[in-house]
């Protein structure tokens, strides 16, 4: 097991290197210029522009910049933003809690809803509940998150005035009143993300449970006289959840990607919102850092999924 994890880690390193190279290469070869905002400004003469360019290290060839960037990255230095001149790492740390609060709660809520829905759908197959759940799942992954978001805003913010539609990140949770305010402003982004997660996971859990229900060990468990409820929960559900756990791990990066859209709709100042803003500002260090962060997430959670699978399923043995 230990050797398997080490081998997987060793494969992850070249993958990340190549991805970092691709990301940096795209950014470096692109026609965009971070100094273009000065180009039309008569107060910034060309000499000054050249000096800024030099101070930012932009006059060096891009492969040298890449090696420098990578070496600094290994030391945990993400460089400085072209726009705000703050260290990129500070920007990320400032924004990460907002993203995690929304994405994390939404994903946990999604899983918590998907397990019972998928389970009941499978056990009571073709019942009214199953039909409703299947329809709900189809709607859930067919409706784009940005449309759900806009619908919720129209319904709850504009018509009912229940929730604010702009996220206030300066809000600090000090007492019960501010806690309620925090709940009110996070509830819509959470619903949007959780709806999609619940839909995909519930369908998957249903399919897995249906594969297991007719198997011999289930009949044996029933034959022993165990209550049906316990057969389903202790025997079928536990076995069906093994592939689901890996799916949950594999889905984490996608959830962060989904946050890009959701943060944009509700103006949540998180990582995704920072990415969109930095892209339109041609703020290369910030964009490179965030895209690379996403790549790390993907590689990391692929690894987690593989390891979890090996840990949870004793039938799988890795040399």
């Amino acid at each position, binding site marked *: 097991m230990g050797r398997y994890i080490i081998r997987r880690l060793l494969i992850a390193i070249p*993958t990340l290197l*190549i*991805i970092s190279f*691709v*990301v940096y290469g*795209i*950014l470096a070869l*692109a*026609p*965009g210029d971070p100094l273009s905002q000065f180009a039309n400004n008569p107060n910034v003469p060309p000499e000054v522009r050249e000096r800024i360019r030099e101070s930012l290290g932009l006059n060096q060839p891009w492969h040298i910049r890449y090696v420098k960037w990578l070496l600094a990255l290994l030391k945990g230095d993400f460089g400085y933003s072209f726009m705000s001149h703050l260290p990129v790492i500070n920007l990320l740390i400032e924004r990460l809690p907002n993203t995690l609060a929304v994405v994390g709660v939404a994903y946990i809520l999604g899983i918590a809803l998907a397990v019972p829905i998928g389970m009941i759908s499978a056990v009571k197959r073709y019942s009214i509940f199953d039909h409703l759940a299947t329809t709900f799942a*189809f*709607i859930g*992954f*067919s*409706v*784009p998150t*940005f*449309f759900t978001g*806009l*619908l919720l*805003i*129209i319904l709850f913010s*504009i018509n009912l005035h229940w929730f604010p*539609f702009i996220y206030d990140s300066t809000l600090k949770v000090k007492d019960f009143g501010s806690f309620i305010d925090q709940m009110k402003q996070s509830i819509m982004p959470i619903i949007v993300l959780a709806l999609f997660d619940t839909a995909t996971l519930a369908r998957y859990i249903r399919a897995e449970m249906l594969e297991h229900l007719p198997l011999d060990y289930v009949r044996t468990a029933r034959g022993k006289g165990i209550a049906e409820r316990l057969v389903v929960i202790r025997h079928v559900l536990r076995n069906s959840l093994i592939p689901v756990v890996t799916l949950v791990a594999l889905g984490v*990066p996608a959830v962060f*990607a989904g946050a*890009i*859209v959701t943060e*944009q*709709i509700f103006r949540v100042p998180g990582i995704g919102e920072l*990415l*969109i803003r930095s*892209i*339109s500002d041609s703020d290369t260090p910030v*964009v490179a850092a*965030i*895209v690379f962060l*996403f*790549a790390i*997430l*993907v*590689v990391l959670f*692929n690894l987690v999924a593989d390891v979890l699978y090996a840990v949870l399923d004793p039938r799988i043995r890795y040399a």
Partner: protein
Amino acid sequence: MATTTDVRKMPVAATADMMRPPRSLWKDAWYQFRRHTLAMAGMVTLIILILGTTLGPFVYTTPINDIDFSRAIEGPSPAHPFGTDDLGRDTLARVLWGGRVSIAVGITAVLLAISLGTAVGAFAGYFGRLDNPLMRVTDLFLSLPILPLLLIIIFLFRDTLRKLFGPEIGIFLMIVTVIGILTWMPVARLVRANFLSLKNKEFVEAARTVGATDARIITKHILPNVLSSVLVAATLGVGGAIILESTLSFLGLGFPSDVPTWGRLLFDAQNYLDLAPHLALFPGLAIFLTVLSVNYIGDGLRDALDPRKS
């Protein structure tokens, strides 16, 4: 004829089955598919949507860029069934026109992804030597953060392509290419797995013994057997590609505002949610209906083409 005498000796049920005109795989699948109510409903809806967006603008001739400030932000009325936007442009005309772009992007991007994926999967599955390197590349692509990469590529190269091919064709080509290049991997894995299990089957060996070349075995013998699962993946992929394109446009990084795709219409509608919710409602519903229909069709096809079910 010899076969007719054989049939006469058989039990009645079997004879009836054999007297029926022969049905091909696709006729069989169609028979199964027709019984899947929701898939049929999805197909009817999708055909209506496609006809509406392709032929609609010929019937409903209101121009998409007719600015009329005196009629800005009006709700649905007989003159403008879907209302007007902030510049007084007709929403129905824009939704119909936008559908052309959105559906065309979805289908073209998937065709590209499917072709790439099938080629990579077929080579990796058929030629043992290529398997490891090609699958490494596939794994690498699977590790790429798709949405952030799409966003930066489109933002960075948008102006260059715009200059080269013009605003519509340039962006269309780029979005289709980038979506295709970043989404072929699941198809490659699917095709490879199918090739691995089929390439040692007797019918392939038989083809080889009569002297069929590798190219012929791949295209004429193995590929037709893989086609049905690729078709299901392709159908479901169209829904994904439409959502992806509208997500890009919604983030302001897809088509420019003079090309009204469904995602772009929603992006523009964001600022008028309080005054004109219909601006968001109609294009949003259009995306939702299209993707839902496509997903139901995919589901129906999967059931219909699954040999275990019939």
